[in-house]
């Protein structure tokens, strides 16, 4: 991404970009999201943490409607999320998503993975899409792997390609759903480095993660969830040094012991 593009992303820093208001979600008997109120401002990096089953992944997936919601509203850049069809597809193109299990298109090369969206969704020419894809792949450090298939790459490399694939759409916001949880420990850093880099360039990000180091370094705000509800929101320093709720104290006590 060029400096100019970075500037576009940062423009209007501080305005609300993603707003969740009174969001409720059930999986059968389970009340997965309880009255969620969350605003993510343009250029802000929000890290969502919490114990397993606290609803943080579900929260992340509702933002591009991979999960539907039962009640409440979600707006992106002032517009309600569409229900179905082309309008929804168009919205999703504005929201980049990185999955825990990478989900690269297994039958396409690394380059094709990154150019598919720009060509088919944005209608970009093939040559231009490939030029841009190669720049992005270079930027995440896998430019020399462009002709390979996903299965030929390590997990860390695949996840960096997944980030490049999402960035190729020039999204307004990037969602990361536990991006390092499926990685071997030695590969976690290479992915986090790319994410930190992205955060420093002003990308709006919602990151569900267990990486407290990343939260301390890159987050503007930490959201702590438990049992489907947001329990606490704070700056990283405040949250890690001085958690207010018992649930957060308990959680931090467990993960920071070692």
């Amino acid at each position: 991404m060029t400096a100019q593009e970075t500037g576009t992303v940062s423009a209007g820093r501080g305005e609300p970009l993603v707003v969740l208001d009174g969001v409720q979600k059930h999986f059968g008997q389970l009340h997965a999201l309880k009255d969620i109120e969350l605003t993510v401002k343009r250029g802000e990096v929000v890290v969502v943490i919490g114990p397993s089953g606290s609803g943080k992944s579900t929260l992340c997936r509702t933002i591009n409607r991979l999960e539907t919601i039962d009640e409440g509203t979600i707006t992106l850049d002032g517009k309600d999320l569409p229900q179905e069809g082309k309008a929804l597809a168009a919205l999703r193109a504005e929201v980049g998503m990185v999955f825990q299990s990478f989900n690269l298109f297994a039958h396409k090369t690394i380059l094709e993975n990154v150019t598919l969206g720009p060509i088919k969704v944005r209608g970009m020419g093939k040559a231009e899409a490939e030029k841009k894809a190669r720049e992005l792949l270079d930027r995440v450090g896998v430019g020399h792997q462009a002709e390979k298939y996903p299965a030929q790459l390590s997990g860390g490399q695949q996840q960096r390609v997944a980030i490049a694939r999402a960035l190729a759409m020039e999204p307004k916001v990037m969602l990361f759903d536990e991006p390092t949880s499926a990685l071997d420990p030695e590969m976690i850093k290479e992915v986090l480095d790319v994410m930190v880099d992205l955060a420093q360039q002003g990308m709006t990000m919602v990151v569900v993660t267990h990486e407290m180091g990343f939260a301390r370094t890159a987050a503007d705000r930490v959201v702590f969830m438990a049992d489907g509800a947001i329990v606490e929101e704070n700056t990283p320093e405040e949250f890690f040094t001085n958690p207010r709720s018992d649930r957060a104290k308990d959680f931090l006590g467990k993960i920071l012991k070692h």
Partner: protein
Amino acid sequence: MDAVFSNFDEYLKAFGLTIGLFVVSGIASLVLGTILAVLRVGPVSILNKAASLYVTLFRNTPLLMIFVFIFIAMPVLGYNFKVVENIEIAGYNVSAFFFRACLALTLYTSAFVCEAMRSGVNAVPLGQAEAGRAIGLTFSQSMTLVILPQATRAVIPPMTSVMIALAKNTSVAAAFGLAEATATMRGFTNDNADERIGIFLFFAIGYIVVVEVISLSSYLVERKVRVAR
């Protein structure tokens, strides 16, 4: 065996018609069956139900009954498809009989193609579809660009079985006005009652060759798809 050798052009013509029935209804079934499979996994509830009803109806009805319906009941009701005889493709025009046989075979086979496709689609991890949607692909784009190409590989073995069954099912047309291999075999044995066993073997070999060609092509496609991954 004189009966077969002295009428070898008849023998070839008969298998030509068998292959013609197979190819036309095979392609039609693949197209229709794939559309049905997409409807079955798609987001529109009414289309789900319609496709599922179609599969229940045609997969559970004996092929012979579908032939009887198309060849004997439909003409009585006024649908004899004679209009197709006015259509000319590259100097040839299709007989209503050929069209009806292909229609019956396609209605039946597409139900099986649909189920084979669906099992292939289900074999593709859910994450692939989510990743497609996440970059803004529409349902049909994510189907054609992401899911179906990957489903193809898982689909080849069951689809081969469906196609082999189709190749052999074309023989039902023997009793409905088409001089394909089985009908011709019956003509040969009727004229040459003393050579029944030889004639039977010769026609059986013809079918074996057709089926082996299908298996071999499926093997080649499967290998090609594997290399491409």
